[in-house]
């Protein structure tokens, strides 16, 4: 199975965000791989290895990112985890939106013909959650978003995807090629059944750490550099940022003397009960 995984770098969510005029001040940003994308890479690796036979690989995992040159660092970290190859499409974060991203991945999918495109369900910075859905629409492929479990069925021709929806788990069968976006629980010990690894195999919780061997091997793995123009992407940015402002500073709370006073204030001042 050939899997294309999308990976976006995002500012460290633990870091305090600074504003510079009408944009984010990214001069001191610590960049890291979007967590859901890291889960997508882990999912792709679990789908293409036989964990019951010393992690023997059966398939190819290609990770793609769109961004400036230094996104290579995040791509290398996915190669160190075990991905086979990476593609870096040159671009600046400020000039991208979900439309351009979806069109770019569409072009790459038409060129490289993967069996499956795995994506994080959303990026921790924009939280827009729409690139995967657009992409499936443009490719005319089936989609399964918010995947919490994946099982390879029909001899590798389809996936049974457990989707995390408001009402619970919806199980959906998608024939390949397909677009799947992954949710948090996809990295649980029993979330992936790939038809090769023993069904009762328990993976370690969470995405894997790159081993020293993995880090050294990543140095020799290829990263293809390309551009939006070279891929023939003509989409224009549709989202425009009008203003950007920090949330107002929290005001100090007040102390109440009694439960009665609290209830009265919640009712008459906060008007929540």
């Amino acid at each position, binding site marked *: 199975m050939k899997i294309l995984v999308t990976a976006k770098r995002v500012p460290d969510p633990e870091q305090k965000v600074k504003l510079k005029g009408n944009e984010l001040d990214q001069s001191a940003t610590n960049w890291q791989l979007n967590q859901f994308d890291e889960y997508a890479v882990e999912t792709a690796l679990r789908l293409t290895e036989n964990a019951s036979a010393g992690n023997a690989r059966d398939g190819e995992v290609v990770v793609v990112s769109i961004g400036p040159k230094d996104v290579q*660092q995040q791509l*290398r*970290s996915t190669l*160190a985890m075990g991905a086979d190859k990476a593609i870096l499409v040159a671009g600046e974060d400020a000039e991208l939106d979900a439309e351009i991203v979806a069109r770019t991945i569409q072009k790459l999918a038409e060129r490289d013909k993967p069996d499956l495109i795995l994506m994080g369900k959303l990026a921790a910075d924009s939280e827009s959650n729409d690139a995967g859905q657009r992409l499936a629409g443009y490719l005319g492929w089936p989609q399964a978003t918010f995947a919490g479990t994946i099982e390879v069925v029909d001899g590798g021709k389809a996936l049974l995807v457990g989707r995390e929806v408001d009402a619970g788990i919806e199980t959906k069968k998608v024939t390949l090629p397909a677009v799947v976006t992954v949710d948090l629980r996809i990295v649980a010990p029993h979330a992936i059944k790939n038809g090769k690894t023993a069904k009762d195999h328990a993976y370690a919780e969470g995405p894997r*750490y*790159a*081993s*020293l*061997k993995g*880090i*050294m091997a*990543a*140095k020799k793995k290829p990263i293809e550099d390309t551009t939006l123009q070279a891929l023939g992407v003509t989409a224009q940015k549709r989202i425009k940022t009008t203003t950007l402002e920090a949330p107002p500073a929290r005001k100090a709370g007040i102390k109440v003397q009694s439960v009665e006073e609290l209830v009265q204030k919640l009712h008459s001042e906060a008007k929540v009960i």
Partner: protein
Amino acid sequence: MRFALTEEQDALKRQARRFLEQRSSSADVRRVMVTDAGFAAEAWAEMVQLGWTALLVPERHGGVGLGPVELAAVMEEAGASLACAPLLSTVGLATNVLLRADESHQAALLPEIAAGRLRAAVALAGEVDARPDADEVVLHGHKSFVVDGHSADLLLVVAGDGVYVVRANAEGLSRRARATLDPTRKLAELTFDSVRVPASARLCHGAAVDGALDRAKVALAAEQLGGAERCLALSVEYAKTRVQFGRPIGSFQAIKHHCADLLVLVESARSAVWWAAFLAATDDPELPLAASLARSYASEAYLQAAGQTIQIHGGMGFTWDHDAHLHLRRARGSATLLGDPSAERERLAHKLGLSS
């Protein structure tokens, strides 16, 4: 010359930090340090999987074949997180000694260490006689302060003019963990009561240990550097958030000066440690000088950083609940391992021809 970590070394260090944040949190350290073993088997198994035990082992023996700089990167993060794991003993000390043994010993033992099937300790301080008896050698005597000596599967014992491999279950060997100031690192007393080992258990000449010891000192100094860095980070964070008299305490000059002094100490220690690691990686003849310098500087930097961290945190700093005192204990314990700062300075002076 570019004196900075390469992209891979940087990735390795980040990965080590990330792993240790998850597996060697303050709660983990406190849970593990009170156990008899002194390390968590599951976390150690994960460190083996990450390749840390294979780090120095050459590829021909199933290792990754990296060097002192990469080890220093991992040790720095281990020190920052106060990791309770036999890294210094098995990787920093024993692997470096085994790398000086002949090829047959290397081929027999290094793959076992790399794969995590053996944990090893080096017994340095103390007196053990090695008396040849036919095709055996009889070891008799006592060794003290053996890092992880109580739990290691294999002991590399400096005895007579050689280094001998002794299995932990050897007849006549008794081991006892000592109660020490630093609960995060276990030290053992070993008694050899006519322990018989085959003559082939002799690994190398005792003098070969010096080169290994210099490399182990660099690893320990890197661990101390990591600890000092963490103390500085804890202090600065606290100074920015703790409000007293209506202002963060970091705005007071007395606290600012302490933090600035710590930064100077940490950065100077970093220069000394990385220089020593670089010389170790290039087999430079100046390594003994650099190792002594790194150890004496990093020991004092960590001690001061840990002490000041307690001061900056006020009363909270010396409570059991805060990590500052664990760092102070680790700093005190580490400063006296493998030679204390004054001994290192004396050695340095001697090498430079400044003492008689």
